[in-house]
């Protein structure tokens, strides 16, 4: 018999053991009778010789080696039976734990899906990312110019290989740009221009064809070859197994497909799925300047490398900085004062842009951790309450010889069972929660990787958290009970009075802790809600209600600059003539959207260029005439751009009020002044001053802003803005725009269409997420703490029934009883509130950067939360108090 067979044939085995011992006793007895003993004496002696049959059996069971498992099963059976006897309490505990674990798992899973999941490449933890930047900065995050990359790659001694990649986008079509079939619309794709060794460094092999040869990445524009991402291959080419060797058109130019990557491969970034890869030598085709590979100041590439075996990351950093120092000597204009920083790919993710995500993610994890603590306090409370009711049973078991360890193990098994049930519920809640979080994101016009579904990593953590909560919050009561004073317990509850009050104190402390934590969580929630309220009321500087926006890029179909200008000019003219359209214009990047462009350093007329790496920059947009009219963003002075402000005319510029204030001391003084960007760009005259608005986020302090005229600075990728005559007609306006664009070029892709308020969604995303999560956590914490308070008060009342009965018999009124019980509860609550307010006061400082127009000690929030908690707590105390007041003195005194 195998051990597990024995385990499942326990009853048969028990019977056999009984039979074997009985046989022994019978044989011995009959032997002794044969030797002349009386039957009674013989039986007695046989028994004595063998020892107590139960002890022998017990030792035989131990000898089987499956004892622990048998005990576990027994404990589990017993635990289930106990839980089934108190379904209400058990359900509350499981629900509390499930919610606590659920929100934590959902948050972890989201953070994991955002930033923690490793890149699907070979040995992702050994992938090293170098960053390049100024020496004066503490940390550097910049990209590399291609020429510097080549020197670093060839001169370093510590990397086994170093590759470069650059993010590009392109329109894909299967026909050539000018004579494509009718109705063949291109689509916009994200891809990468990569060095030939890129796929080797990533350690990923194509599933079809091959990757790039060295030869293909040695001469600019010579080898138009492309490797496809798996999803693009499936979607657009129906998983064509014979795709290798076929021609596709990127930005209207023919490229030969040489390979297809596996489905898991995303490219270089964890947040965007790349659809295609071309050799870096093709970069110019995708909008890079002609001198992209020679200009050392033109930093458009990011690097990944693998270290030689045994090399530490610090050694490699020193090594690369040596190369950088020699570059600085050779090319002082571009490379002076620079340094290189190395990070693993995972650490490098938290560069500038993702700091907020990291910070917000950690904050969310911290707050949801607090909620879990509140939930755990409920479980500890339940276990303590159960321990009290079971003190007698446990006392008896200890008295008849059960070991303390055995009792603790029993209680531990029960709490683990509880926490696993909670974990199971938590898993379901987390799964649904991540879908809700995912759905709350506005549509983003990028192939963002946003899979928040819990994965194996999250599952492991959740299991660990469940078990840990089970051990911690099951163990404390378990140890507490195992110290039970046997005599007192068995003599009856009255003698155990001192223990009871000790237990009540412990439970009281748990309630105080719950209230304290809830206050902190609720205040966070309150601050975020107030912040969202402020955000929704904040004037972004433009009117979005009647605004339709969409992105178009004729450059994706290889239009030349002249054709692009003609295209946009015609489009704007045609659209403005349409009924329902109040105004139409174009901008390269919308304010408060994902991307932004900075220009500078700004040099006023008569001043000289600032030294390298110094100087002031300003965010910039390129707009067509009537932009300010379309956005209903008034010019406070001067005039708008016109079509005549083109390359033939003197350069002009419109700035915002803040720019005028900061550089010229005010709008009046700024008008007619001229400034330029450093490195010899022509002077531009300020012809208008626009009203200040919000540009990067709703939280920002006043920012300088520059508007440049489209006809002096052509761009291929533009956002079309249409202001409708009335809000109801937005969908018709979209249809009109689609029709007009198709009239000009049927193949042109239209993407990122946003109607009215949708244009603000990205700006509202962060405050909305924060307020949504804050509210969820706050309500959860409040509910859990209320359950805790309520159950403790109910217990207190049940324990004080006798006392209450005596008081009532001596003439106490119902009102007195209400006051007695409510004040007992509220004492705990008030201590908790004071502690919570103090804690929040200290902790909310950390929220400063995430709040809009609300102080971290906002009195409205602090007072409001305190009032809310007092109200809810009064209710939670009042119901048990009413029960106490209804106690019949006679019944109460007869108890016990």
């Amino acid at each position: 018999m195998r051990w597990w067979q024995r385990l499942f044939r326990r009853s048969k085995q028990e019977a056999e053991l009984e039979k074997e011992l009985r046989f022994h006793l019978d044989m011995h007895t009959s032997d002794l009778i044969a030797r002349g003993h009386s039957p009674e004496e013989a039986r007695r002696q046989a028994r004595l010789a063998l020892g107590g049959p139960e002890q022998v059996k017990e030792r035989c069971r131990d000898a089987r080696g499956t004892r622990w498992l048998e005990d576990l099963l027994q404990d589990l059976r017993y635990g289930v039976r106990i839980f089934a006897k108190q379904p209400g309490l058990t359900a509350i505990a499981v629900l509390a734990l499930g919610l606590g674990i659920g929100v934590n798992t959902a948050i972890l899973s989201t953070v994991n899906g955002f930033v923690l999941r490793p890149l699907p490449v070979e040995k992702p933890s050994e992938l090293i990312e170098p960053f390049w930047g100024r020496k004066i900065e503490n940390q550097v995050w910049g990209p590399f110019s291609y020429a510097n990359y080549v020197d670093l790659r060839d001169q370093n001694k510590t990397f086994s290989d170093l590759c470069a990649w650059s993010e590009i986008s392109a329109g894909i079509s299967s026909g050539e740009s000018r004579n494509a079939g009718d109705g063949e619309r291109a689509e916009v794709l994200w891809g990468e221009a990569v060095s030939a060794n890129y796929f080797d460094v990533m350690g990923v092999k194509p599933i079809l064809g091959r990757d790039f040869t060295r030869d293909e990445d040695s001469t600019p524009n010579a080898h138009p070859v492309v490797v496809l991402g798996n999803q693009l291959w499936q979607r657009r080419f129906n998983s064509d197994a014979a795709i290798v060797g076929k021609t596709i058109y990127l930005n209207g130019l023919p490229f030969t497909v040489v390979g297809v990557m596996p489905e898991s491969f995303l490219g270089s970034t964890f947040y965007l799925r790349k659809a295609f890869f071309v050799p870096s030598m093709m970069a110019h085709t995708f909008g890079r300047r002609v001198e992209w590979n020679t200009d050392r100041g033109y930093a458009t590439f990011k690097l990944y490398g693998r270290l030689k075996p045994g090399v530490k990351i610090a050694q490699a950093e020193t090594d690369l900085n040596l190369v950088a120092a020699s570059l600085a000597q050779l090319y002082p204009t571009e490379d002076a004062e620079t340094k290189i920083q190395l990070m693993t790919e995972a650490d490098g993710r938290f560069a500038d842009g993702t700091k907020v995500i990291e910070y917000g993610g950690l904050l969310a994890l911290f707050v949801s951790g607090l909620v879990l603590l509140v939930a755990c306090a409920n479980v500890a409370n339940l276990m303590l309450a159960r321990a009290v009711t079971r003190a007698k049973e446990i006392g008896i078991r200890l008295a008849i010889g059960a070991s303390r360890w055995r009792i603790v193990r029993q209680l531990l098994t029960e709490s683990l069972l509880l926490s696993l049930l909670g974990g199971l519920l938590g898993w379901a809640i987390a799964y649904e929660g991540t879908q809700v979080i995912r759905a709350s994101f506005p549509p983003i016009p990028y192939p963002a990787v946003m899979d928040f579904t819990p994965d194996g990593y999250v599952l492991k953590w959740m299991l660990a958290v469940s078990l840990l909560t089970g051990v911690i919050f099951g163990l404390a009561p378990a140890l507490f009970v195992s110290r039970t004073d046997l005599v007192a317990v068995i003599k009856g509850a009255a003698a155990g009075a001192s223990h009871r009050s000790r237990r009540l104190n412990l439970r009281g402390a748990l309630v105080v802790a719950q209230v304290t934590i809830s206050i902190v969580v609720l205040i966070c929630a309150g601050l975020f809600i107030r912040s969202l309220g402020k955000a929704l009321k904040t004037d972004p500087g433009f009117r979005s209600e009647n605004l339709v926006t969409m992105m178009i890029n004729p450059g994706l179909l290889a239009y030349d600059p002249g054709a692009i200008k003609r295209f946009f000019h015609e489009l704007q003219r045609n659209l403005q003539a349409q009924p329902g359209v109040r105004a139409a214009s174009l901008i390269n990047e919308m304010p408060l959207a994902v991307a932004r462009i900075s220009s500078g350093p700004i040099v006023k007329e008569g001043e000289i260029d600032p030294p390298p790496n110094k100087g002031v920059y300003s965010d910039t947009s390129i707009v067509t005439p009537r932009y300010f009219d379309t956005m209903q963003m008034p010019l406070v002075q001067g005039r708008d751009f016109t079509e005549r402000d083109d390359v033939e005319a003197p350069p002009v510029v419109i700035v915002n009020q803040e720019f005028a204030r900061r550089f010229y001391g005010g709008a009046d003084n700024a008008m007619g002044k001229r400034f330029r960007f450093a490195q010899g760009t022509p002077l531009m005259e300020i012809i208008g001053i626009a009203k200040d608005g919000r540009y990067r986020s709703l939280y920002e302090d006043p920012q300088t802003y520059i508007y440049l005229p489209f006809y002096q600075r052509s761009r291929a990728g533009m956002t079309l803005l249409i202001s409708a005559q009335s809000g109801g007609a937005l969908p018709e306006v979209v249809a009109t725009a689609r029709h007009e664009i198709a009239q000009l070029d049927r193949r042109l892709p239209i993407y990122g269409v946003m109607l009215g308020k949708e244009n603000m969604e990205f700006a509202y995303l962060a405050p909305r997420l924060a307020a949504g999560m804050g509210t969820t956590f706050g309500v959860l914490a409040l509910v859990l703490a209320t359950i805790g308070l309520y159950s403790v008060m109910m217990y207190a009342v049940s324990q004080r029934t006798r006392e209450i009965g005596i008081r009532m018999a001596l003439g106490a009124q119902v009102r007195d009883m209400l006051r007695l019980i409510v004040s007992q509860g509220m004492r705990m609550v008030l201590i908790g509130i004071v502690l919570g307010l103090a804690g929040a006061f200290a902790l909310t400082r950390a929220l400063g950067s995430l709040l809009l127009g609300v102080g971290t000690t906002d009195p409205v929030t602090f007072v409001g939360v305190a009032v809310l908690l007092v109200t809810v707590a009064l209710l939670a105390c009042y119901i048990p108090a009413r029960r106490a007041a209804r106690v019949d003195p006679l019944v109460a005194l007869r108890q016990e």
Partner: protein
Amino acid sequence: MTPTKSDLPQGTLDLLILKVVALGPVHGYAIAQRLDQVSRGVVQVPQGSLYPALHRLENRGLLSADWDETETGREAKFYRLTRKGRAQLETEAAGWQRLTDAVSLILKMSEGGAK
């Protein structure tokens, strides 16, 4: 029961059981009796320890057990040595022999030294 009876040294009970069972299939009571007779009452084998030891040896795969009828027609659990058990018996017996040889050698030497 003689006053000179001594307790069984640690770990030797298993060896003795294996040796008894090696003579042929035998039930628990018979093992107890055999041990009693063979050791001529010098060594005390607590019957209470016998069964846990049997179960432990069975669990370790050194013994196997079947239910069979005795000569008197009663059902009893008969233990027999497995191949693994026989190997174990040989190693343990050899080890025991070496140990006792060494111990008695040392005892003789110390006597010689006293002379």
